[in-house]
């Protein structure tokens, strides 16, 4: 967050609570530059020249790492059963410490049902079999020779934001814990349809059971329609080989579909006529509705957003100018608009979306804001290109059984107290 001493009388308001016109972004930037030029020169004495400005820098290194002062920027790890079953864990991306839209590889969220396998790429293979004319297997060396595609897409665990879904009182934690099970990556790899066409899918082959080479051999049934539309055998993540946490040496990428289906450590694509009702699509990734019936094969993630700056666990540094910033996405396509409210939903102003706005990808939104120091509630509400709008929490809860927490995409309100504390609240 940046702050300047703008004269509030000159501000152009867009909605209640101090939300400013998007045009104020440029104006305030210009004002900031002007103010910078007006700073007195020569205030620093020679003795203040820092030591790094008076010495040669460190030698080159083969693989760069974040600055030492940023070492605390880490994934938030949850091991619900600790040492009894440490292979089951969730690790949330610290979105409140990041900007832009691309998630650094070391901070991509993880959900492991059986830990992170240590795979020898020379012994790994991808099998395509079942209802195909030519059952095939590919090693990594062969796959490297295929034409590759590149696309930016989010991945979101169906259980992202689960604490807001089920906790009776809002949990006070950062965006890493509350909304960290979503990340955004430039993926590179082979369109799966190229491999499927090489194997020759038989007409009755309507589904593909994808399985990983991890201990539990996690498996999901995927519609052939999705595989052929935009399924990718991802080999690279933001330009480098996929990290072990993300499925090294290869994973399935199904843009917009719940994370669990994007099988990591992919070793098998088995073509079938129907879904096989794997464990994850039988219980873990089904949703019980308010009437006791359940949803099965709920694949695409709904439209969603949350404000990252400011967000819970932060403290405001006094009244004045801030830029509200956050992330929005939809499994159904592009984000069409994001509205922000600074008065608990009484009024809304449309935020600016940072280009490019890509389908099934995290989109950064922002809006200038003049906080007058009084308590209020900030929130964001995203609409996607299909017209779907994020629901309020009460509306989401009314549709589901009390125990349900998957595909939770409700609006996230942040309470700003008079003291400047930012807290998670339900509205």
């Amino acid at each position, binding site marked *: 967050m940046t702050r300047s001493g703008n004269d509030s009388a000159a501000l152009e308001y867009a909605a209640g609570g101090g939300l400013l016109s998007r045009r104020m972004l440029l104006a305030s930037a210009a004002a900031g530059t002007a103010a910078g030029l007006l700073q007195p020169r020569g205030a620093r004495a020679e003795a203040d020249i820092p030591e790094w400005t008076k010495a040669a820098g460190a030698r080159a290194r083969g693989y760069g790492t974040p600055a030492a002062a940023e070492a605390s920027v880490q994934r938030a790890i949850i091991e619900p*059963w600790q040492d009894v079953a440490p292979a089951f864990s969730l690790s949330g991306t610290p979105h409140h410490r990041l900007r832009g839209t691309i998630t650094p590889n070391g901070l991509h969220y993880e959900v492991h049902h059986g830990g992170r396998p240590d795979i020898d790429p020379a012994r790994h293979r991808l099998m395509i079999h079942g209802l195909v004319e*030519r059952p095939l297997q590919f090693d990594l060396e062969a796959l490297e020779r295929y034409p590759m595609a590149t696309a930016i897409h989010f991945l979101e665990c169906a259980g992202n934001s689960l604490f807001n879904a089920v906790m009776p009182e809002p949990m006070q934690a950062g965006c890493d814990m509350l909304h960290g099970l979503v990340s955004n990556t430039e993926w590179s790899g082979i369109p799966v*349809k190229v491999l499927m066409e*090489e*194997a020759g899918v038989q007409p009755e082959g309507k589904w593909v059971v994808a399985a990983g080479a991890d201990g539990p051999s996690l498996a999901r049934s995927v519609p052939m329609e999705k595989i052929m539309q935009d399924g990718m055998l991802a080999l690279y993540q933001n330009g480098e080989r996929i990290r072990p946490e993300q499925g090294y040496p290869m994973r399935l990428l199904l843009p917009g579909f719940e994370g669990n289906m994007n099988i990591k450590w992919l070793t098998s694509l088995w073509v079938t006529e129907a879904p096989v009702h794997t464990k994850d699509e039988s219980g873990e990734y089904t949703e019980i509705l308010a009437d006791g*019936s359940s*949803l099965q094969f709920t694949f695409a993630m709904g439209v969603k957003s949350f404000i990252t700056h400011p967000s819970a666990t932060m403290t405001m540094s006094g009244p004045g100018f801030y830029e509200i910033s956050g992330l929005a996405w939809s499994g*159904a396509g592009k984000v069409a608009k994001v509205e922000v409210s600074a008065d608990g939903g009484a009024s809304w102003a449309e935020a600016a979306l940072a280009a490019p706005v890509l389908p099934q990808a995290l989109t950064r939104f922002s809006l200038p804001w003049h906080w007058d120091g009084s308590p209020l509630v900030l929130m964001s509400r995203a609409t996607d290109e299909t017209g779907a709008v994020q629901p309020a929490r009460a509306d989401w809860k009314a549709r589901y059984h009390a125990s349900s927490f998957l595909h939770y995409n409700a609006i996230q309100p942040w309470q700003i107290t008079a003291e400047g504390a930012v807290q998670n609240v339900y509205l």
Partner: protein
Amino acid sequence: MSIFNLATAALMLTAAAARAEGPGLGQPLETAEIPFYATYVKPDGTGLPEGSGTAADGEALYAAKCASCHGATGSEGPVMPPVGPNDIWAKPAGSYWPYATTLFDYIRRAMPLEAPKSLSDDETYALAAYILERNGVIDAETAMTAETLPQVKMPNHGNFLDVWARQGAKPW
């Protein structure tokens, strides 16, 4: 949906041309080279191996290999979700899942967590039987086999709405 179907149909029509997109480097895969975990037991029982086990057989196995995580009776944990009847988790495997075949396949490929794929087929049948019996779905004496397991009628079967069939990729 319709536009996707059209796209898929167009892809099928041009399949021969599309094959030229790749260098064609896949190597033949023989049936004998396909491990069991690259397939899945289907609801009709296709893929179930020979073997059998009863809940009575499974009880001691469960105590030795499963109870440390799932709890002495399958309901108390510490590790969730419980496999038996309970008030904590609304989706216990032995009663909520639509098909009993999934129990066999999942136990065989994934359990125990620290030693997946270590159970024999007889042991896997016995553990599936024990979990079903704990949930009151079968009795303790009925052996689970390739013939009997697919015939088990799960109590929550028929209580699922197939979202993909209803509306495709449109989020619920």
